[in-house]
């Protein structure tokens, strides 16, 4: 309850800061959408030159992309660790966070909420609806509940991975260049992982499990039975990686010694 109240207060605050830079708000929404559009263009360009990608046709790949956008939008809205090291460690704002009663990680999430990202989720749902109806996918009783569960699991996976990586900045004082590169890799989880060789498949499934935020869960809705087990594993992977992230974080915070002033 207390945390919900905080969330609302922070959102109000967010609106106030945002209204100061009104033009920028729209620039950001448009740039987010453009980011999605460019990936979309990549898929369209690929299918101008081929009929199938590892046995998946254009509508299926587009559908997977639509699903991928939904949890990614939610994640970007509530968990934004971009620039954590510069802002909180180098500039010493972590000290301020730690002196407050609410959980430190939660405060950091709140201070960086980014509601425009949710536009991406809405567009993702639209893409799923369009390509789903092109494919004639049946709408089952479990479609909506499963969508919610899988979305939340995928968000947990993202949060786990990025929290783990961000907590590295407690140990080394390097401004981590890893996060932007990770953003490149996560998009590969959208493509049918079976096209990659064994090592990359294992990497995308078990080590940095980005296949669980795109292709595996989406396969469930596409009735791709060969991936059903993996799809149903998504919540487990989510729980495990979120656990790793939170553990790494709390170890890191214990190690933290103030820097800067």
């Amino acid at each position: 309850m207390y945390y919900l109240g905080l969330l609302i207060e922070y959102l109000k605050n967010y609106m106030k800061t945002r209204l100061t830079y009104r033009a920028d708000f729209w620039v950001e929404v448009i740039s987010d959408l453009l980011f999605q559009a460019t990936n979309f263009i990549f898929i369209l360009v690929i299918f101008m030159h081929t009929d199938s990608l590892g046995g998946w046709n254009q509508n299926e790949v587009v559908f997977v992309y639509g699903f991928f956008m939904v949890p990614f939008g939610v994640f970007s809205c509530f968990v934004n660790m971009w620039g954590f090291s510069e802002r909180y460690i180098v500039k010493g704002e972590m000290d301020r966070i730690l002196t407050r009663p609410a959980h430190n990680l939660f405060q950091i999430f709140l201070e960086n909420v980014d509601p425009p990202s949710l536009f991406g989720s809405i567009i993702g749902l639209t893409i799923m609806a369009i390509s789903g109806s092109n494919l004639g996918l049946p709408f089952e009783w479990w479609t909506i509940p499963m969508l919610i569960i899988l979305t939340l699991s995928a968000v947990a996976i993202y949060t786990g991975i990025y929290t783990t990586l961000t907590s590295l900045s407690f140990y080394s004082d390097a401004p981590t260049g890893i996060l932007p590169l990770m953003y490149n890799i996560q998009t590969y989880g959208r493509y049918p992982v079976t096209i990659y060789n064994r090592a990359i498949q294992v990497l995308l499934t078990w080590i940095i499990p980005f296949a669980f935020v795109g292709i595996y869960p989406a396969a469930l809705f596409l009735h791709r039975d060969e991936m059903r087990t993996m799809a149903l594993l998504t919540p487990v992977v989510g729980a495990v990686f979120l656990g790793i992230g939170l553990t790494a974080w709390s170890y890191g915070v214990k190690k933290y010694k103030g820097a800067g002033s």
Partner: protein
Amino acid sequence: MLGAYFDFIRIRFLTMLAYRVNYYSGILIYTLNIGVNYFTWKAIYGGGESLGGFTGAQMTTYVAVSWMARAFYFNNLDREISTDIRDGSIAIQFIRPYNYVLVKMMQGLGEGMFRFMMLMLPGMIIAILLFPVQLPTELSAWAGFLVMLFFSFLISSQINIITGLSAFFVENNEGMMRMKRVVVDLFSGLIVPITLFPDWLSSVLKVLPFQAITYLPGSVFTGRVQGVGIWNVLGIQVIWFLILLVPIVWLYHAARQRLFVQGG
């Protein structure tokens, strides 16, 4: 005077050297990027012989070379400049006896040299060992490529500087920086070679500067462009370098008139 600028290259090089974690993870992630792209393209080719004028082998080389070139020319000058603008430290930099933009360029070059030696070369060796990359054997192709790579760096950094300086006019240019990153990766031909785009789009991209960053040098290096074509590519790069100087000079002067510090 010039010595001071060279010091900026040296200092940035040494600063980069201090962040070893970034360096090891960088090699790993660039190799992974090449690997994933290689397999994606392999799946796209399926049994096909050639796509948009690229044979399968050329595409592999193109992917490897493009990502490795990116390891060299990529930098965060846009973010550095907009941070300087937002926290107000740019005011101090403006009154120092040097040209702010030139200093940024030098720092970018220091970073680029670090990335060249520590990221690009070892990454290239790993890529050659793992994937069927075919590198040219003539010395002239290599010399040409190095010169073009340098222009890729200049053009990419110029675009970064323009994006960074725009923070003078839109206060918070986070959105623009993100947009720039995406546009450069896609339209430079890093993700999809420009010939594979639909005709209308590739004809638009041919009059934009982005192709000069990745696509043109990559085409030369994979052997798709040879002979006189190499000089054309170099010519296009030089022309874009000169054209992009205009908005930078203009922005820099306009910025000095407009400077207002938002805090700090």
